[in-house]
């Protein structure tokens, strides 16, 4: 193994790409949790659905159709979940919520099997994003760079909305203290619903952009769930800063662990998780200080 500058650049890009994918998933989950105190384990299943929608739409109208419409379709599924289940379970306590959304994972898993079958699907990367770009002395797949740029752009957009707009202030107020927010005339339930739908759309988007990298299988939602949960526990619940920090930590530890200390790689992230929980049980940047 030759370790030179190119190696570091390459692995850094790999880590960033993994981080951004995790960020798209975890940001929705963490803000939903922070605002609604609702544990939605089915978030990973929505990511898998996003990948399937993207694969099917791409087969009809090309990659970009899948890219733009899969998040909308997943948000639509989110609306059904919210009105059918989640709204009724808002007050039923974390145990019931975990059980129901855990059950949802399997229900959605089997639904994807029924509709799309057990075989892995693949999506073609569009022409403009295929191939490689010379970047800081390394050749890197354009599509992976695209994921990094997309994740960064979405992070920038979300932090702008959260910190600078009225709806962002309302969301922060709701995460801080939903009862007081309601006493100021804010319809917190409607705010929850909007945030939930945006979270679902982002999960769908993550599935759609991940689809060309990985093969699309029913289990992909389960596989991503644990990393996503680790990200939000490390980062701290309910905050955008926590989601991006947790994602970056996970991405870098996982990627560099795998190449520098392959024997330790699978333990490393759990050791880190345990360390964070011991030193700062609420995570690094929790919304409620």
């Amino acid at each position, binding site marked *: 193994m030759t370790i030179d500058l190119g190696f570091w650049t390459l692995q850094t890009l790999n880590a960033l790409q993994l981080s951004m994918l995790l960020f798209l998933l975890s940001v929705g989950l963490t803000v939903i949790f922070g605002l609604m105190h609702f544990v939605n384990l089915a978030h990973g299943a929505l990511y898998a659905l996003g990948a399937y929608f993207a694969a099917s739409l791409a087969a009809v109208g090309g990659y970009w159709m899948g890219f733009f419409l899969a998040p909308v379709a997943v948000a639509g599924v989110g609306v059904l979940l919210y009105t059918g289940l989640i709204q009724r379970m808002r007050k039923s306590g974390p145990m019931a919520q975990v059980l129901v959304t855990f059950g949802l994972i399997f229900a959605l898993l089997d639904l994807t099997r029924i509709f799309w079958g057990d075989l892995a699907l693949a999506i073609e990367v569009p022409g403009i994003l295929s191939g490689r770009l010379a970047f800081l002395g390394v050749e890197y797949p354009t599509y992976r760079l695209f994921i990094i740029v997309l994740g960064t752009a979405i992070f920038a957009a979300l932090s702008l909305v959260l910190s600078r707009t*009225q709806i962002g*202030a*309302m969301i*922060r*107020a709701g*995460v*801080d*203290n939903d*009862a*007081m*927010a*309601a*006493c*100021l*005339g*804010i*319809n*917190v339930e409607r705010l929850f619903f909007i945030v939930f739908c945006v979270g679902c759309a982002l999960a769908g988007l993550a599935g759609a952009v991940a689809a060309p990298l990985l093969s699309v299988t029913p289990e992909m939602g389960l596989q991503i769930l644990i990393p996503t949960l680790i990200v939000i526990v490390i980062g701290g619940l309910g905050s955008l800063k926590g989601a991006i920090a947790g994602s970056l930590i996970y991405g870098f530890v996982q990627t560099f662990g795998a190449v520098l200390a392959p024997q330790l790689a699978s333990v490393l992230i759990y050791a880190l998780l345990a360390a964070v929980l011991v030193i700062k049980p609420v995570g690094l940047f929790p*919304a*409620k*200080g």
Partner: protein
Amino acid sequence: MLELNAINSGYGETQVLYGMSLCAQQGRVLAVLGRNGAGKSTTLKTIMGLLPTRSGEIRFEGKPIAKRSFDIAKAGIAYVPETRDIFPSLSVRENLEIAAKRFGGDGADWTFERVLDLFPRLGERLDNGGAQLSGGEQQMLAIARALLMNPRLLILDEPTEGLAPIIVKLIHDKLQELKAEGLSMVLVEQNFGFATSLADDVVVVSKGQVVWTGSAQDIRADEEAQHKWLGV
């Protein structure tokens, strides 16, 4: 203006209010007095829809009050909770704007500038985080935020709790100003002198119901009632 008729309410299994009935009049200040655990804060939380009423009826301006807190706020009741509940993730400015943007409108009585005139201290702290304020500043912010809702009724839960005497005096003077303008208020207080010097009407609460009703002068003169219900 606000009427509670035989309200039963509480937290989960624990009932706190047993047939609470009281009436706040337009343009007047009603003080709700009583010992710790008598049900004063529970009464305010029930009015704001934060605790469900099990039975009984609350009417605001002649109509049954809305069920959900944000509808109650929109109907014109502003709430200053005992814990102040400043949003720590929001700056002082954002804490104020969140109320002003929703209730400000053209020709609104209370504007951003006007609450800063009332509490100039807040003007110096606009860009500070909500978590960086002293107790007194938090109380000023909580009142300013409530006023920006341009309420018809302001309800305050122990506004003097834990504050230095000089700040208590300041809050007293400001509430006196608001009273002089004709703002209707319901004031829950432990501080007997503070409450009775502001209030027109007084109810004393014990074990979740009203045990004494009268004017502020009456209760100041009635040493027996003070001793029996308030331990003054």
